[in-house]
């Protein structure tokens, strides 16, 4: 039964094949039995999960259950969960039990979902491999010597290993899409502002966006229905009407205009990845899409612009972790400065410190114009590139990542090579556009992800396009060897 999608499990609950309590117990047992191989969970919330499952069963029995009622999910550990440790995978917050729920957490709770636990990630979402977690790296179920990607690596690994049918993730530069690609699952980064950021521990405020990760586009749509929507607690939340993200799934794709950016298919792209992506595009042509080459001329500038803007915002966002009101405090601080420096020096890992320092430098007197302001100008140019292309095509397609999952330790000593992982994903965060990664093949036994990029607030379109692809292919149904279902 662990191969079932969220939609299929919902049908089972509806039919009474099993109760939410039975389902929850089964997943909890599975996590306890298998997660030592993947290290995808930081915290398993057995007691709360069973209480939520019981309440869901009662609601369903009373006829009050919605689409998600009683379905188990798990949250990336940067979403605040009341009464449960919310660590952002950092020593800094190892002792932080959140006194409140993030907006998306309470929305999913209200929808009746059952929270199995909190998922591993790169520390403060800074990384593309999950190796910067204070709790050790999560591992890729396709090959446990490989990384699951990051920063939502625990979310992707847990879904791929079928330890949870769905998970939440967050995406600042590709942190949903890249691990989804590397673990062979589906992950959607919505338009900036579509999903509330309140209660999501910030990395880079103008880039962060939460989204769903699951086996299929349909499941992502179901979760997004509960996550999305205006939140008065988040000034950057978009004031738009609610949509049913599952309503358009079955629209045929005939006449769909697809753009392939020539810059995404350079020599640097792994040949196996390129082949699978081209095969996927051919599949879309069979479904009635027309494909043309387009150009995003400033693609190469994404990385430098991003690696100024994201660290700059992060350097300021992470100043609140000072050992005064919550979180890690060093032993016996000699004075105030010692309290700050040692609490932060000991509480943050190396990559977090590195990015804080880059951001601090980029914002410091004398460098603001050369770095921060320049990066924001380039951000405008990158956005304009997308606006131009999306005036001409419905969706843009390309590889999610330049290569498949890499070995643990392979890039961890060289931050710059790690940053190149995000070349195709982070431009969407700069532009604020939605993107989805769907499994589209394998190369050397490891999954390849296809990224589909849409216009602002075109999540329904992306889910429709991805769903139609998944109706025609079965890459999303592939289960890693060694993962028993």
């Amino acid at each position, binding site marked *: 039964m662990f191969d079932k999608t969220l939609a299929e499990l919902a049908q089972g609950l509806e039919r009474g094949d099993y109760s939410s309590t039975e389902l929850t117990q089964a997943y909890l047992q599975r996590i306890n039995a298998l997660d030592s191989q993947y290290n995808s969970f930081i915290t398993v919330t057995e007691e709360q999960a069973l209480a939520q499952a019981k309440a869901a069963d009662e609601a369903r029995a009373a006829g009050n259950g919605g689409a998600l009622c009683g379905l188990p999910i798990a949250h990336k550990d940067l979403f605040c969960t009341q009464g449960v440790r919310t660590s952002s995978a950092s020593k800094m917050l190892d*002792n932080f039990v959140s006194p409140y729920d993030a907006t998306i957490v309470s929305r999913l709770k209200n929808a009746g979902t059952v929270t199995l636990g909190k998922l591993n990630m790169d520390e403060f979402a800074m990384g593309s491999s999950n190796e910067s977690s204070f709790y050790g790296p999560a591992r890729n179920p396709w090959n446990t010597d490989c990384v699951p990607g990051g920063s939502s690596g625990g979310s992707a690994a847990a879904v791929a290993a079928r330890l949870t049918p769905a998970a939440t993730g967050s995406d600042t530069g590709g942190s949903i899409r890249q691990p989804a690609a590397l673990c062979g699952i589906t992950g959607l980064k919505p338009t900036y502002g579509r999903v509330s950021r309140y209660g999501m521990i910030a990395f880079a405020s103008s880039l962060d966006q939460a989204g769903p990760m699951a086996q299929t586009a349909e499941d992502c749509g179901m979760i997004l229905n509960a996550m999305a929507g205006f939140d008065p607690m988040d000034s950057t939340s978009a004031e738009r009407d609610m949509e049913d993200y599952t309503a358009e799934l079955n629209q045929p794709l005939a006449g769909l205009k697809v753009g392939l950016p020539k810059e995404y298919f350079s020599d640097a792209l792994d040949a196996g990845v390129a082949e699978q992506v081209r095969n996927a595009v051919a599949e879309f042509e069979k479904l009635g899409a027309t494909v043309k080459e387009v150009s995003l001329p400033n693609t190469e500038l994404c990385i430098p612009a991003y690696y100024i803007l994201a660290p700059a915002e992060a350097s300021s966002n992470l100043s609140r972790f000072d*050992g005064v009101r919550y979180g890690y405090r060093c032993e016996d601080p000699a004075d105030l400065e010692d309290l700050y420096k040692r609490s932060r020096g000991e509480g943050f890992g190396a990559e977090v410190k590195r990015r804080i320092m880059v951001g601090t430098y980029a914002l410091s007197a004398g460098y603001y114009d050369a770095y921060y302001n320049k990066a924001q100008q380039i951000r405008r140019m990158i956005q304009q590139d997308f606006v131009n292309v999306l005036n001409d095509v419905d969706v843009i397609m390309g590889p999610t990542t330049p290569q498949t999952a890499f070995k643990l330790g392979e890039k961890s000593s060289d931050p710059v090579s790690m940053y190149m992982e995000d070349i195709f994903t982070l431009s969407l965060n700069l532009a604020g556009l939605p993107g989805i990664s769907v499994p589209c093949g394998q190369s050397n036994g490891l999954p390849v992800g296809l990224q589909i990029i849409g216009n602002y607030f075109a999540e329904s379109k992306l889910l429709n396009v991805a769903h139609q692809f998944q109706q025609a292919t079965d890459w999303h149904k592939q289960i890693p060897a060694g993962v028993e279902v």
Partner: protein
Amino acid sequence: MSLDRSEVEQIAHLARLQIDAADIDSYSDSLNSILNLVDQMQATNTDGVEPLAHPLDAVQRLRADEVSEVNQREALQAVAPATEEGLFLVPKVIE
């Protein structure tokens, strides 16, 4: 742009990060390689381009001036490293 040890120390001080003396060179190396990477953008002409702070050209929404928060001191201070008489304790503040 290249940062030397003292500049790295100064940045770490601004960010209030204790860095072990032995690690400064490796931080310095990785910061320099990141700065080399980001310096690629310096070659791009951005004259006249309006900086983009936010992807959506949205404007600030306003909140009604009504008290919506109640006293939750006990719950909020349950996670604090040190409190006394409702205050957060820190090493002596000298003004």
